[in-house]
């Protein structure tokens, strides 16, 4: 039985990031888009904690703390914008957000 090495954690972080990336690219629902963004940030967090643990350095963990702060603020602002847009256009799909083109 192989033990879990840091590269396994890094590969999982890469998988999380890729799934979030495809979510951002392929979904047209802005709510799901924001959720995929969260997933990408989670992958980054996992990679940072892994590096922080392997190099026995706390800086990475403190970075994760700040990333969480920024993610929470981003979600709050994004959802407020989404609700404002929904009140104006009655849709949450990004195809309908064509205020500039017509």
């Amino acid at each position, binding site marked *: 039985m192989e033990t879990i090495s840091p590269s396994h954690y890094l590969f999982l972080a890469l998988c999380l990031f890729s799934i979030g990336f*495809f979510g951002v690219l392929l979904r047209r629902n802005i709510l799901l888009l924001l959720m995929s963004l969260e*997933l990408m940030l989670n992958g980054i967090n996992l990679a940072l904690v892994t590096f922080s643990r392997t190099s*026995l350095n706390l800086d990475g963990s403190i970075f994760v703390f*700040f990333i969480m702060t920024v993610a929470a603020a981003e979600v709050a602002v994004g*959802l*407020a914008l989404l609700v*404002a847009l929904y009140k104006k256009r009655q849709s949450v799909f990004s195809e309908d957000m064509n205020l500039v083109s017509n």
Partner: protein
Amino acid sequence: MVCSKHPVSAAMFMIISLVGVASLFVLLEAFFLAVLQILVYAGAVMVLFLFIIMLVDVGPNAGKSSKMKLISGLAGAFLISLLIVSFLIIVQSSGWIGGGANWSPIIEGAEPVIGDNLSFSTSVKSFGYGLMTKYMLPLQISGFLLLAAMVGVIVLSKKEEQNTN
């Protein structure tokens, strides 16, 4: 989570994956971050998401397939494969495959600061020490960012109310 049709089930899968990441933090001996992950993400952010999903009432009638979607999907697949290949090359060259890099044990009761870098520790005390000394300015900036986000959200939702009246 990305593939599920309905936003509510997507949010449920998202909660599962967030709790999974928190458990991985526990395995990496970052207990404070695991607690923070549960509190902030599974506690606050996902509740906010579910609240908004219930509020705007989006159905499962997801977007029409467009040509743009195909193009962006292909471009994304290309980028991700590039990322995976470079990742594998880096991992291979650093010799990390198959337990090449073992987990070095945490020194209990070590000095919180060695030279310029903070040493990893499971205790919350060293975390707070690092935040209050080396990362004082980023801490204040993130506090200010939260304040700005709060004011921004209040302004956004208030203006819309005045328009409807």
